[in-house]
Structures are given as C-alpha cells and as structure tokens.
C-alpha cells in the first residue's frame, strides 16, 4: 500500500470514527438480545414512555420521611404540569402551616420562590430540559445505558414528587429483579404493584396502568421504614389554570 493510500485510509477512519462517536454507535453495539417479554417488563415499558401518555397532570402527594430515631418529617406536595415544560410545584409542611418552597416553569424560565420571604431566583430553562435524545425509549436500551438518564424536564423539578411523575429512571435500575405482585385501585385508577430489592433497600411501587406514573411508593432500609409517598389527588388530562405557570405578583427578585 502506498503512503497516499495509508493517509487516505486513516483520514476516512477518523471522519467515520468521529461521526460514529457522536451518533452513539458504542451504545448500539452494547445492545443485548431482548429477554422474553413478561408482565413486569410491560410495567417498566409503561414507566419508560410515561410522559407520552398524558398531557396534563395536577394533584397532591404526601411524602413521609423517617429518621433513624423514629423521627418523622411529612410534606404535602401540590403539583400542576402541562407538557412539555409548564409546571407549578409547591412543597408545604403536611399540616399546610408553612409553605416551604414553590417552583414554577413558564416554558422558557424557571423560578424558585421562597414563599416566606416573598422572593424568587429565576433562570432560563437549560437547553437539555427539551432534549430527549439520551432518554431510552425501549426496555433493551434502558437496560444497556451507561448511566441513569432521567426525564430531561422532570429532573429539574426540585421536589421528590418529580421522580414519581417522571418515572423513566425506574426501568434503568441496574442489577434489579422486579416482581409484579398484583393489581390494586388507588384514586379510582387501576395500578400495578411491583416490588424489588437492591442492597439494603426494599421498594414497593404502585404504578398507574394508564400513565405509568408512580402513585404510591414505599421504601425501607435494613427493614426500617425510610420513605412513604402517596398521591392523595390526581387528575389526568384535565384543563389546568394557566395562571399557575406565571410568576405571581408580589414576589421580588433575590
């Protein structure tokens, strides 16, 4: 082979290598054969594509955290979301006495509001919040990701309720065997119940069959209660008051 051919070959290799790297060919090569479909896989597939199954959600969720000395912290989360990126999330103490925080996305900017101080800090929604290219959409892809990829808008929500409204992370758990243990009805909605164990954590999750949203979640650590989350209200695809997505008057920039 002549020197000219060597240079030509290596140049072509570099060009295709860069293109391949950017297109994620290593990911494609890592894909493994699909395991036989099971009902648990169907549940995970529903969570993976959850955000395609609803346009608006609004409701409330109570989340209880347990400390090592039997302390308890309880929060009421109120949420209203319209796809793709309008949201209003507020967190209060469970008795409603103190509004701890509020987060609003108007589609171009997001605002963290301190209801006590009546101040806010705002910033433009980052570009990745609208970029779905890394989010796996099939179970095969989810099981072969190099990291946990959360929903790009859901991961910006600074409240744990964001994890349950955008449950795409669930199907990406490495080294987890999921057990579908039954069905139930919560808030007049049919739900699947799945359980799994990883290290010292035991999880039971109740997953809405229509939307894939996790409407109830219990986690224990070393046999002790750690977290209990329950949706207490849920409306799917009902009209949402658009003023919820506008920065309220009466709050000033920090």
């Amino acid at each position, binding site marked *: 082979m002549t020197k000219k051919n060597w240079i030509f070959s290596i140049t072509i*290799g570099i060009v295709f290598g860069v293109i391949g790297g950017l297109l994620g060919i290593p990911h494609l090569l890592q894909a493994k054969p699909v395991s036989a479909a099971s009902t648990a896989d169907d549940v995970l597939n529903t969570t993976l594509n959850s955000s395609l199954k609803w346009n608006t959600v609004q409701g409330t969720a109570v989340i209880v955290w347990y400390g090592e000395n039997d302390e308890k912290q309880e929060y009421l989360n109120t949420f209203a979301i319209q796809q793709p990126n309008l949201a209003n999330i507020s967190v209060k103490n469970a008795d409603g006495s103190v509004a701890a925080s509020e987060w609003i996305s108007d589609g171009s900017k997001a605002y963290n509001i301190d209801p006590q101080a009546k101040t806010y800090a705002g910033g433009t929604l980052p570009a990745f919040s609208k970029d779905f290219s890394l989010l796996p959409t099939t179970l095969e892809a989810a099981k072969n990701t190099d990291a946990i990829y959360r929903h790009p808008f859901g991961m910006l929500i600074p409240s744990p309720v964001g994890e349950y409204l955008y449950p795409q*992370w669930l199907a990406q*758990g490495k080294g987890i065997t999921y057990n579908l243990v039954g069905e139930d009805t919560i808030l007049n909605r049919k739900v699947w119940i799945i359980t799994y164990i990883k290290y010292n954590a035991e999880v039971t999750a109740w997953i809405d069959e229509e939307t894939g949203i996790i409407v109830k979640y219990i986690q224990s650590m070393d046999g002790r209660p750690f977290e209990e989350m329950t949706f207490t209200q849920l409306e799917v695809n009902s009209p949402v008051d658009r003023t919820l997505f506008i920065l309220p008057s009466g709050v000033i920039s920090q």
Partner: protein
Amino acid sequence: MKRAMSVLISIVVAIVTASLVTTMVFAVTRISESGNLSYVSGPSGYPSTKTSSSCLGGSCLYLNQSSDPAVWRWPYLSAGIWNWYAYCPSIGQAAAKYGVMYESWSTVMNQANPSNWGTDVYLGYSDKNSSEALFTSNTCISGWGCYSLPVYWDSMGYTGH
C-alpha cells in the same frame, strides 16, 4: 490482484481507526473527588472522608446535611465540557443538589434512590462551549428528608463536545 489487496488493507485500516476514534470521542472522562474539591462558599472545613467499597475507588467525601450549607466544586475545567454525570454511592440517603457554576442550572439527585446506587447519574449538559465547573453542597432540600444525613461527593464524569 495487488490493487485489490491494497483496497482491502485500506478498508481494514479505516475500520480500525474509526473504532478507536469512536471510543475516544464517546469516552467519559472521570475526575475523582479525593483531595480535588475546591471551596466556593459557606462554613469552612473540608468534607470528611468515608472509606467504603460502596464508593467509586473505595472512598467518598461527605458533609452532613445542614441549613447552613457549604458549597464545593470540582476544579475548573477547560472549555468543551458537554454531558455531566455524578456517581451515586450505594450508601446514600440524602438528596444532593448539583449544578454548573456559570450557566446557572441545577438538578437534584436523590442519593437514596436504589436505582441510582452504584452507577453514574446524568445531570444535564453545558450548552455553551465555555469553561465550566460542577458544584454540590450539603444543603437540605425542601420536600426531602433532612436528618443531618451525609451528602456524598463521589467521583464525577463528563464527556467533551
């Protein structure tokens, strides 16, 4: 015959080179937390070291949750950072806020979520091709449990533009 052999070798060389460059372009660069954090704001005092096989490389740094948080960052990095990742140790129980210094966005990674344990968690990307640094702090985040639990600084990773 000689010409055909030359073409064949050219194709093989091109494929091998493409594979090597593809791997290099896609590789995640890792930065260990050990001894490399830089102070940004809040109370002074370097994070403590936790020796555990649950941490990447056998140890993590940590500070207990506080309403008077200290902010630390990984060293400033050269321009061209794209995707950001943080490794989640399998002993976490707190929620950790991560963000980039200049583009002013942050996300919360739940270190208590078993799905995150023992793997990298994607944090987002830097849109501008400018020098950036990733920060985190031991702040209590409203809505998550706050019992002075350890917030871990384990290794972070990134890919370039």
